[in-house]
């Protein structure tokens, strides 16, 4: 397997893997969908990260990208390309109905976490699914 990207997960100030916390609370079906969606993306160059499997947000969230998948309902994994050139860091997981994320503040959380990781690369670690 030729991985072109390293998948990292955001760490809270006390070193807790917040994406893993969300992921661990999901059903086996959602966990499997996350694993497989990422398996495909890590083997693809940036230009192949596109709809329907991935999308970049817009406006003030334009640096945030979402991995998109459906298991009974729509799910989004919010992340960004960084902190280094070949990394994609997972910031938060959420389900989505219409324009609404659950948790509702998922986007703001992701933006805040991205800024923390950008300011200090140690606020993320390589994650394994």
């Amino acid at each position, binding site marked *: *397997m*030729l991985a*072109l*990207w390293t998948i990292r997960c955001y760490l809270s100030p006390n070193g807790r893997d917040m994406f893993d916390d969300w992921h661990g609370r999901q*059903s*086996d*079906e959602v*966990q*499997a*969908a996350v*694993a*497989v*969606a990422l*398996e*495909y993306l890590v*083997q*693809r*160059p*940036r*230009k*192949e990260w596109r709809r*329907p*499997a991935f999308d970049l947000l817009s406006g003030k969230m334009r640096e945030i990208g979402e991995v*998109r*998948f*459906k*298991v009974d309902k729509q799910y989004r994994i919010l992340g960004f*390309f960084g902190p280094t*050139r*070949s990394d994609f860091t997972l910031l938060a997981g959420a389900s989505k109905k219409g324009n609404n994320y659950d948790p509702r503040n998922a986007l703001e959380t992701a933006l805040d976490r991205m800024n923390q990781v950008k300011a200090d690369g140690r606020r993320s670690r390589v994650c*394994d*699914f």
Partner: protein
Amino acid sequence: MFAISSIGKKLLEKLQRKPYRHAYLAEHVRRGIAYQIRALRDQRKWKQGKFAEMLGKPQSVACRLEDPDYGKVTIQTLLEVANVFDVALEVRFVRYSTFISNTRDVSVVSMRVPEFNDDLGLAAQQNKKIANRLTLAALEPTAASAIQDAETVSIVDWPGRLDFNAVSATSHLQDLLALKDYTGVSAAIQTELLNSCVIADYAGVTAAPAEAYHA
């Protein structure tokens, strides 16, 4: 034989759970089909509209076939897709270790499949013969070439290492020779090279430096 070490420890642990295992299988099958249809279409440089037209279905159907979340594609539809791309289709039950082994490489390149004419067609066979002879007779040691099971001609000592299928190899070899010294290339081989380009169909892979993947 499948090496357990080639999959992550965490994945192996999770696969012990039946619901996870079944979901993982379903997700891989659905996503794999969608991604491969897109890869095959891109390989042929077809727009989605052209693919739909060839399939004799509305573009919305072609779009759905490339959506990993769709998951309701029938074997009949897969056969129709295989016919449009002129590739074979294999659907079979296998042990999990085989499945895991076969799905470690899901890169775009691994999903490309040549159409029949570039695989078992007569022109492909002719080109393979020419490419093999050219590589062996004319380019060694200049290009330190290797032939892999007569389907892929690899030219190393060239920017980015290029792998071509044999059909496209001759046109690339011509480019190579155009830039390099013809010393050691016989007139007969040169003539054959030029003649071969008449039947060589350019379908090569563009080499890109590693940084380009992250741009």
